[in-house]
């Protein structure tokens, strides 16, 4: 198992957001997490990636216990996330954004000694920009990009860190159908080499590309399985469609 959570719980004050979640993600799989608003999906990401420590329970990544570790440590282990609300460096150019992400994986990532230009990051930066399709806009300030391009930049930056497991938080939020289509292609291409965990609201997307779906409601896992299995699950139908 690449990622495993055991009885993972998180509460804020009196509010229980995650309850005893057991999740296992094998390597190479594309999994989606769905659930109504407030189900705890983003909180799950936050706890896994070290933004908040768990209230109880554990998180294992490549067999190691990462519960409560700091965010930058977890990131260095290969567990990387994108953000639901675009979180890029608005006053740096697109190229500089991606380059900074590439820099994060160098051994001398915060070296004071050698000039930054000597690290040969330009080639890798160019490759990623080309792969995501942002090469023509590489000299624009990230804050000036269209919404869809900014979401793609988010993904580009996560890719630049050579992740083993990539957590994408609503990658297509706010996108037009055309942009969504592009993003789906991108995700499917990435999934060939990277294990993916998605939070998504777009049901078509989820049903089409996921190999496994996990359904959360009020911090509990109420269903898990292939898209077909989840579609037929009565609990899921109740939560989403209100059927008795």
């Amino acid at each position: 198992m690449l990622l495993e959570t055991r009885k993972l719980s998180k509460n804020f004050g009196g509010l229980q957001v995650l309850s005893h979640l057991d999740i296992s993600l094998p390597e190479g799989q594309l999994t989606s997490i769905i659930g109504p608003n407030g189900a705890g999906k983003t909180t799950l990401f936050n706890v896994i990636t070290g933004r908040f420590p768990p209230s109880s329970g554990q998180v294992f990544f490549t067999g190691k216990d990462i519960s409560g570790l700091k965010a930058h440590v977890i990131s260095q282990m290969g567990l990387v996330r994108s953000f639901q609300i675009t979180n890029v460096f608005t006053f740096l150019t697109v190229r500089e954004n991606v380059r900074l992400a590439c820099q994060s994986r160098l051994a001398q990532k915060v070296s004071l000694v050698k000039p930054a230009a000597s690290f040969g990051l330009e080639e890798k930066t160019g490759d990623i920009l080309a792969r995501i399709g942002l090469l023509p806009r590489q000299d624009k300030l990230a804050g000036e990009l269209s919404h869809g391009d900014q979401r793609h930049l988010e993904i580009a930056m996560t890719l630049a860190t050579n992740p083993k497991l990539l957590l994408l938080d609503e990658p297509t939020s706010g996108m037009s159908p055309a942009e969504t289509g592009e993003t789906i292609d991108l995700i499917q291409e990435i999934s060939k080499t990277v294990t993916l965990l998605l939070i998504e609201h777009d049901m078509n997307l989820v049903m089409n590309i996921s190999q496994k779906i996990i359904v959360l409601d009020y911090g509990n896992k109420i269903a898990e399985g292939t898209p077909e299995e989840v579609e037929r699950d009565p609990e899921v139908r109740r939560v989403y469609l209100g059927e008795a």
Partner: protein
Amino acid sequence: MASGRVDQGSMMGWLAFLKKYSGWIVLVCLILFPLSAGTLVSGFYISLFIRIFIFGLVLLGFDILMGYGGLASFGHAMFFGTGAYVTAILMKYVSPSIWVGMGGSIVACALGGLVIGYLCIRSRGLYFAFLTFAFSQFFFLFFNSWSFVGAADGMAGIPKPTVGFGIDLGNRIVFYYFSLGMLVVGYGVARHVVNSAFGRVLVGIRQNEERIAFLGFNVQRCMLVAFLLSSIYGGVAGCLFAGYQSFVSPAVYHWGLSGEIMIMDLLGGMGTLIGPLIGTAFVIYLGDFLSSWMHETWLMVLGALYVIAILFSPDGIMGLMKRITHRGT
């Protein structure tokens, strides 16, 4: 920036040439200055420039922390003051060698920077400013009442510094070149730091600290390093100050000095390294010029300039120049 070919014949060509090599031109001028001007006039200006060089060093370190890293330290006088007092004490009681003073200042400020930095780095923005302010007030109040260093009257009788090699550092012109040399070295180091991988991360932290952390960078450690660098710059500058003045008083720890440092950085242009040097020169020259007839109340003018800059050109003189030259092209 200057285009590839410089047409030396045309006006634009000359301007571009000047812009590209302006730093070197200024440096050459500064080197030649004491040798050329008459002794009566130059005596005053030599003093002025020495002070500009000394405070320029403080600003270089400060700009790394605030201009690039985004942390507004409202207590930077504490490192300048520590450098000054440590040097004064060492020179008076141990050895007049400036290197001893400098070594002591660097050690003291590095230690202080580590401890105080570690405590303060967990806070940001206003809270960081308040914390650094409070710590610097500790230093001020302490040295203002410590009888060993003369309390509020300050410490006099510091011997003229020696630098070895048979050079008389007590000579003002020699000290001019010494401090200019230190500034040049300091600038070179600062420029190198800012262009390094670390420098890039620092800029990223200022813009989006969370993202930097999630990319895998240890934010706390980076900020601590920036704080440490700025504290050491302050200490070295303080050392030079004590060596030059032969007298130190608690004024070196005064919060007004911390405020002036912030003002010099903003007026010059934060986050450019050159800007703060320009800002330092501007403020010190203006201060000298105005205080001869306004005394302390020239600070009113400085405050007004500060307010105007914040309202109309928060990126300082450098930003203003950039906008003017862009409008020309």
